């Protein structure tokens, strides 16, 4: 499977670029992928290289299939669906997350407070909308337009859906991370985005859902402290990884399936 093979190349290339930068800086090679041991200037370069790897993989996939990249990806962006699907997705994700935060606020599971000086806070918040769009755009191209579409071409819907969900969730743990208990939350998130893609056949709805979610999660992050148990309310940018968050994600997935239909699962 070409798409899966290319996606599996991503961590290998990320590790290779990290190792090259560590070698150049005279530091020992690390087994795990994380940029903490790199000098500050090389961390920026490492981020740039990671994005270049994503871009190269995205371009390589249609070319290896014999398609023109523009024609291949443009098929996932039908213009008539753009506004209603993006708006519905973003509004759905924002509604569910704000209700979740409201519930935690009123039950004193989270407290809102400014965690950084004003200039740093405003700088962070100003960058959130663009980050949300970029994260949603790149991840949806990789995991839905490239991977899930290839899986759907080769396998029955349930098998493609399950594999798409597991690969998407696992990809969030390729780098060294602080928390691994968030995996069920990422699986539920993957189920939402994959269902949205299968239901509509395009990327507008998953991009709307993804960008709306990242917008709220990153916008709230510098203003919130969690006091409740992580298994219930989540933590940091993972309120959807607590039990209630996972139930909310499954409900949103069901809403998407009811609203947009799609092939039977």
């Amino acid at each position: 499977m070409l798409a899966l093979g290319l996606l599996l190349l991503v961590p290998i290339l990320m590790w290779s670029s990290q190792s090259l930068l560590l070698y150049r800086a005279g530091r020992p090679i690390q087994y795990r992928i994380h940029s903490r041991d790199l000098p500050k200037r090389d961390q920026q370069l490492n981020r740039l290289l990671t994005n270049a790897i994503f871009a190269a993989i995205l371009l390589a996939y249609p070319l290896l299939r014999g398609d023109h990249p523009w024609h291949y990806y443009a098929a996932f962006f039908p213009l008539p669906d753009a506004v209603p699907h993006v708006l519905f997705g973003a509004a759905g994700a924002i509604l569910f997350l704000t209700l979740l935060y409201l519930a935690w606020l009123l039950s004193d599971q989270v407290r809102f407070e400014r965690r950084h000086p004003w200039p740093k806070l405003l700088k962070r918040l100003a960058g959130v909308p663009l980050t949300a769009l970029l994260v949603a755009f790149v991840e949806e191209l990789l995991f839905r337009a490239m991977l899930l579409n290839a899986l759907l071409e080769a396998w029955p819907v349930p098998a493609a859906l399950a594999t798409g969900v597991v690969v998407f969730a696992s990809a969030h743990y390729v780098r060294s991370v602080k928390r691994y208990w968030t995996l069920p939350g990422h699986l539920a998130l993957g189920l939402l985005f994959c269902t949205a893609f299968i239901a509509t056949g395009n990327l507008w709805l998953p991009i709307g859902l993804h960008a709306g979610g990242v917008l709220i999660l990153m916008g709230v992050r510098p203003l919130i402290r969690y006091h409740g148990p992580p298994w219930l309310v989540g933590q940091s940018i993972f309120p959807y990884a607590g039990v209630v968050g996972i139930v909310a994600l499954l409900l949103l997935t069901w809403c998407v399936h009811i609203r947009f239909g799609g092939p039977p699962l």
Partner: protein
Amino acid sequence: VTAPTPQPVLIVSATDPQQHGALQTWLSSQNWAATKWIKPRDVDELDAAVQRGTPAVVFTSWPLYLDALWDNHIHPVDWQVPLHVDPAGPPPSPRDFVALHNTWQHTRRRIRLTAALILSAIAIAAATTILLLAGI
């Protein structure tokens, strides 16, 4: 053979403790020369700093200490080192604590209300968008 560097006393203060004359005099009287300034916004790192080792923790004012305690940022019952609050100042009266608690509650209620209003406004806007798109 050189003597090991003494671990610093952790001082939680809104302003630089070096500029705090009475506090410096008190620290000298305790023979504590090395100090580390913890700003109030970093107070949630205090538990970990105490675990790493320190001869004592000093808060330069009662509101700083009580805010950190009531906001659940610090857990002094777990500390095995002396804790001093405004050691250079006059001791507070029981009524002062009532006033401090009222102020803390008022501030937290205001923040909570503001957060709830903003979140509700966003949720209403999102819900309206969905209803409009559904043609209702």
